[in-house]
């Protein structure tokens, strides 16, 4: 699918395509996800039989690579596209159910610490992207969209920002292409760096949650490192996502002040409504399930069952990440948005890593 050029009907709204049209694509997601599982298990068997030391490559990576190969060679047949486009929906269900793994006290502790880090990191990210966009001569709104995508939550934030600052399809397409390409770069590079630096699961999860741009890629990056890293990465990323409305509001007011976008009506009520409209509501589901777990509504067995459903939802997500990544779309968008995004990712990655190492030591986050 050309993420950079085609509309994304399932990115934030279900627009009423007949349900049966989703079935082939969802089945494809299941097949690719399970093929990833099979590949991971088979590699272990081969290693054991031959006595060779082969790396234990997580199924997440296999599923993503398989999806990438299909999407960029034979392509995704139109019959599969509606279902394949649902991967962010499964991601959100997975995150909601992951709430059962956290008690509210943990959410408050990790969320509180990460909120502070996100504000520092986000400020650095926005400043870096805007300065680099100016230096590389990117159109202003393209720079704004890249800044929104880098500081907050990738594709969803760009879609939310596009309408608010009245960016055109080309600008949002370029931004989405760059953010997805950089998400793929992070997927492959962050776990390797984390292992090289001997980061703990907790520290790596914090780092991935702070620095990886798109929620699906953040979750996958955490999962490649380990289950605890995945849980922390999702928690930190959800905190980041919750700030989407404030950042988009800031950019909407900026472009309105320049006469290049319709403004947002003044007054606290109107602005609060704007922020609420952009707020990712699935975060509320995550907190609600966590509250139920905190109040002892679930037994250990229930939590294991919910964890199983969550894992399946993430399996479909990871298969969808590769299938929805069209490298040809990145090539079409030109090198400048990608370069600005790549340099910004490098700055954000280093900054957030230093923040994580500092916070881990100070707050004893282990």
């Amino acid at each position: 699918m050309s993420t950079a050029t085609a509309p994304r009907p399932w990115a934030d709204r279900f627009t009423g395509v007949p349900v049966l049209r989703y079935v082939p694509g969802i089945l494809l997601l299941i097949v690719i996800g399970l093929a990833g599982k099979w590949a991971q298990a088979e590699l272990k068997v081969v290693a054991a039989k031959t006595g060779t030391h082969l790396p234990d490559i997580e199924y997440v990576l296999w599923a993503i690579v398989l999806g990438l190969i299909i999407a960029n060679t034979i392509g995704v047949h139109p019959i599969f596209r509606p279902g394949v486009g649902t991967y962010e929906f499964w991601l959100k269900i997975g995150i909601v159910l992951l709430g059962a793994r956290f008690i509210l006290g943990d959410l408050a502790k990790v969320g509180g610490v990460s909120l502070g880090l996100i504000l520092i990191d986000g400020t650095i990210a926005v400043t870096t992207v805007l300065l680099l966009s100016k230096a590389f001569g990117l159109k202003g709104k393209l720079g704004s969209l890249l800044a929104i995508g880098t500081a907050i939550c990738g594709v969803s934030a760009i879609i939310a920002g596009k309408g608010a600052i009245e960016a055109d399809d080309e600008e949002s397409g370029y931004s989405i292409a760059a953010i997805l390409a950089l998400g793929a770069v992070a997927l492959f590079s962050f776990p390797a760096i984390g292992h090289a630096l001997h980061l703990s699961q907790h520290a790596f999860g914090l780092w991935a949650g702070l620095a990886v741009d798109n929620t699906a890629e953040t979750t996958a990056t955490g999962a490649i490192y380990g289950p605890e890293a995945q849980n922390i990465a999702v928690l930190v990323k959800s905190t980041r996502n919750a700030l989407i409305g404030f950042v988009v509001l800031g950019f909407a007011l900026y472009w309105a002040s320049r006469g290049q976008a319709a403004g947002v009506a003044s007054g606290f009520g109107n602005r609060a409504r704007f922020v609420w409209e952009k707020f990712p509501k699935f975060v509320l589901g995550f907190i609600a399930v966590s509250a139920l777990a905190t109040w002892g509504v679930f037994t250990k067995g229930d939590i294991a069952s919910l964890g199983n459903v969550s894992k399946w939802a993430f399996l479909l997500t990871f298969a969808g990440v590769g299938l929805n990544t069209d490298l040809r779309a990145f090539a079409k968008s030109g090198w400048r948005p990608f370069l600005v995004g790549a340099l910004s990712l490098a700055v954000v990655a280093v900054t957030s890593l230093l923040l994580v190492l500092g916070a881990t030591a100070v707050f004893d986050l282990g």
Partner: protein
Amino acid sequence: MSQDVQPAAAETPATDPAGPRRGVPVDWIAVAVGAVFAVLAAVRVLPAIPWDTVTIPLIK
């Protein structure tokens, strides 16, 4: 980019300038599906159905 200042656009209500959008927000559907599973777990239905025994070996 061109920084030409154009006539200021009139302020609009707090809605998205792109206009009203059709469809059900995916976020709310995800919350609803999550709620169904949470209720099934809370009333001990989810662990009781063979879902886990069939699926956990596949995804373990």
